[in-house]
């Protein structure tokens, strides 16, 4: 039976390849949630930005806000969410895999 995975990423795509490793295992039906320093992945300027096209992505809004990223040019494909939605998502997907 194929399960859906919610991938959480808390590393900046500018400093290491954690996001690339994650994308390597992503399949349709999965979601990627960016939190903490993972929030930098929401920047349009990040090196793997084009790889997020057609993928379901979320970012914790307060993590963007804290880092001063809300006024920067963001990837429009990424949904801004709060912690409540995070909790809800982690129950909606079958499995959670954290990339850190």
């Amino acid at each position, binding site marked *: *039976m*194929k*399960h*859906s*995975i919610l991938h959480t990423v808390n590393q900046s795509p500018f400093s290491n*390849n954690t996001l690339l*490793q994650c994308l*390597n*295992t*992503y*399949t349709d*039906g999965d979601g990627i949630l960016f939190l903490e320093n993972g929030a930098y992945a929401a920047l349009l300027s990040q090196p793997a930005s084009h790889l997020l096209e057609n993928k379901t992505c979320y970012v914790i809004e307060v993590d963007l806000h804290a880092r001063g990223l809300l006024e920067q040019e963001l990837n429009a494909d990424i949904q801004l969410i709060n912690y409540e939605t995070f909790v809800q998502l982690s*129950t*909606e*997907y*079958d*499995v*959670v*895999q*954290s*990339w*850190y």
Partner: protein
Amino acid sequence: MSNSLSSNESNTKKSSKKIGIVMRHAPYGNNLAHEALDAALATSIYGQELTLIFMGDGVFQLLHQQESKAIHQKNLEKQLTALEFYDIEKVFACKHSLDERQLKQNNLSINVAAIETEELQQLLHEQDVLLSF
């Protein structure tokens, strides 16, 4: 997307869950590799379907000729070779990660199945629970 087991598997294997332990970090720099091994050994006792998956820098855990005495840490290589006594036989490594680091099976301390990206995706999506270290 739901957590209830709706497939016919649920009747036959009600208590057994597929647990995947994902190792992605190199050993010794932090305690993750040892914690992962502890988790694996502990889980093996409960008779769950256990799969170990090494990827990224985690494949460095598999390197042979580790000698960690001088840094006052337990030798992970020695501990991994004990897996057979814990009936942990499903051990996989991401082939791409091995290739990237130019590691070959004869550089490794235990037998692992090197799998292509597609098989890796499949394997991860089969698990009921993923524990990431």
